[in-house]
């Protein structure tokens, strides 16, 4: 596979900094829901500070795959997994890996925005509070930084104490992003973050994603191919639990090597 070669080139071109090697490295990942295999022998490398998109028809295992990175699948008893996912070299399935710590390093934004029924402020500092941060100055600083980072600061700075449930759908989703970046993660996972938003809110979130990649490694699931084209540096096409093709986005969209991928991106099936 020359995919990995390409990847290394991509990351070297744009990120000549200290971070050596891929941010996330998946090797031979299989996942079963009971007897039903949802992920089949997946291997790929996700570079630092890039946006990587997973595309594919619904039910192909994109969400399942994404949820492996922060071990959200642990919550389900019926799930069985084997394979390796390395986060900066450390296997997340290792005994030594603390899942709480892992989830602090790998933030997640869900398809349906899920702000807590608390004030905007409390939503943002939630991750810090549960980590035991009490210092008001640190919390205040984190709120401003995160909300600015999520391009929400100007809209809500006057009403930080108001309930987060009073925000619009797009604002809520950006609040969830702010909540995720408040704990300073390395990676942000996004599972169809725009699927419940109107076009204007979607555009804002996409802009934000491009902004985020300067600091974070972003992995996004989307069923919207234009979106993948707009925001992703790399795109993985999945089908029936298999990783069919993984390459630079423009390659996937213009000259894919697999027939399946071409059919999908040109809209002939899916």
């Amino acid at each position, binding site marked *: 596979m020359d995919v990995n070669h390409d990847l290394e080139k991509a990351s070297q071109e744009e990120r000549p900094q200290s971070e050596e090697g891929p941010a996330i490295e998946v090797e031979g990942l299989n996942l079963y829901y009971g007897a039903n295999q949802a992920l089949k022998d997946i291997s790929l490398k996700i570079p630092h500070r890039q946006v990587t998109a997973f595309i594919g028809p619904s039910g192909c295992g994109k969400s399942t795959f994404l949820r492996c990175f922060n071990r*959200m699948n642990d919550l389900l008893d019926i799930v069985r997994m084997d394979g390796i996912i390395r986060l900066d070299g450390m296997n997340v399935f290792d005994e030594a890996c603390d899942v709480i710590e892992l989830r*602090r390093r790998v933030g997640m934004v*869900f398809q349906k925005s*899920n702000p807590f*029924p608390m004030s905007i402020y409390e939503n943002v500092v*939630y991750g810090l509070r*549960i980590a035991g941060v009490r210092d008001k100055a640190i919390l205040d600083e984190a709120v401003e930084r995160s909300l600015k980072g999520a391009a929400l600061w100007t809209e809500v700075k006057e009403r930080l104490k108001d*309930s987060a449930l009073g925000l619009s759908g797009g604002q809520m989703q950006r609040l969830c992003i702010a909540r*995720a970046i408040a704990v300073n993660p390395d990676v942000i996972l996004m599972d169809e973050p725009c699927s419940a938003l109107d076009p204007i809110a979607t555009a804002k979130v996409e802009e934000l994603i491009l902004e985020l990649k300067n600091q974070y490694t972003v992995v996004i699931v989307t069923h919207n191919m234009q979106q993948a084209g707009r925001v992703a540096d790399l795109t993985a096409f999945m089908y029936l639990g298999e990783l069919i093709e993984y390459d630079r986005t423009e390659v996937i969209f213009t000259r894919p090597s697999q027939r399946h991928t071409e059919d999908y991106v040109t809209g002939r099936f899916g």
Partner: protein
Amino acid sequence: MKSKNQATAKSMTRRHARGEVWVWLSAAGMLTTVLMLVGLLVLVTVNGLSALWPRSIHEFEMTDGSKALGELTKRNKEKAGTQIKTGNRDLYGIDFKWLEESEIQNQQLPDDVYVLERLEHGQFVGYLSDLKLLGQPALNNENKHSEFKRALVTMSAKRDELNRWSDEMADLNQNVESLRLALIDTKENSERWQRLREESISDETEFEVLRAKVESFRVELMTQKVVMTDVNGRIKEIALFQILRSYQPNQMSWFSRLGLYGKRMSELITEAPREANTEGGLFPAIFGTAIMVIIMSIFTMPLGVIAAVYLREYAKEGFLVRLVRITVNNLAGVPSIVYGMFGLGFFVYGIGGTIDEWFFSNRLPSPTFGTGGLLWASLTMALLTMPVVIVATEEGLSAVPKGLREGSLALGATKLQTLLRVVLPMSMPGMLTGLILAIARAAGEVAPLMLVGVAKLAANLVVDDVFPYFHPERKFMHLGFHIYDVGFQSPNVEAAIPMVFVTTLLLLVMVLGLSGTAMVLRQRMRSRYTSGAF
């Protein structure tokens, strides 16, 4: 063919029409239910509120020359009879009298008729004839009304004094009793024993002195009398001491009646009952009901919530959990008297008896915790209402969206943190629903209480000024039991009917008040957790 089609069409419309009938029927069913409920509320409210209204007193002249005096209570159209409440139980033996309407010659509202509310024998209705202060009769006619009024005011001050002395006597008595118990615990003839004994003796003498003083004062007070006559001229001397209030209803304006009504209402909620509970106030019963419900909530809420959290959040869904859930659901349907039996056997005799043996053995054989009391009643009620709380809380927990839990976990929260910070606050409305149902049930149950601690007349409140100020082992009074007791166990059931309605109304108001508060709280929480999404 065509006709067959038409027939089908017809039968279909008929079926539709019949469907409409069902709609009407169910609507009628609902209407009946609502009407019955409204009727019940109206009946209780009207009867309860009007029971204390000072009504006019009518005088009837009958064809046989006799007279009758009293307030109108009932009419029987078929028999053409009128029932009046005559009062004067000590003279006539009963409070009520039926008059044949055909025999009534004359009916009027005499101006100078008196109603006296007395400590004993209920009301006296009649005319003021004379005053006998310190054994000496006679005052001239003009002054007797104002003299009577003045004498009553003086008497009320003296009665207060007497009550103060009685309180002192009760305190001394309590001292003597605790000294007696302390003496049992102390080594005989030791220094401390001697001291306690001396103290005890001095208290006892003081008590005796006070008692003698009170007795003589009471005798002296009893010499001050008023001479009343009933409508037929029978003379009745009544000690002023016995008279709690006198008023002349036929002279009263609507406003002064309202004033008196208000006073009676406030007495009702602040004073203790008299005369086998048929007169006087309901304070101990109100207090007892409230405190029982509160203690019940303190026990049932945490336990019920914890049980529900375990069942819903931690226990692995399986046969056992399903069995427990079914059991819990069905426990809500167990007859309450069964809980009463359990409370009696387990709490009162089991735990209470053991506590007595261990800590209060010097008071045996008279039980302290080994008999029904507030604590055991509250615990029994907590047990009885726990299933409701568990079920409601479980519903509240399951209503918390999965997305919020995942959101919290994805930020690195532990399961416990997620539970405490997100899930539990959000299921608060569910818990409050449980609390509302529990309160409504606990405040209304009577049967189990009769086994585990309710009293017809509790001598002391469970809270008082004697250390440790709160006495959960004491028996308590309860509005629900009060209704049963006054309505069906009192010697004079008919006279007690107004009291029954008043008590019922109060019980309703209390239950609605308590659960209303919880409902308002719940509404606030709900709007906090659901406002303005999208």
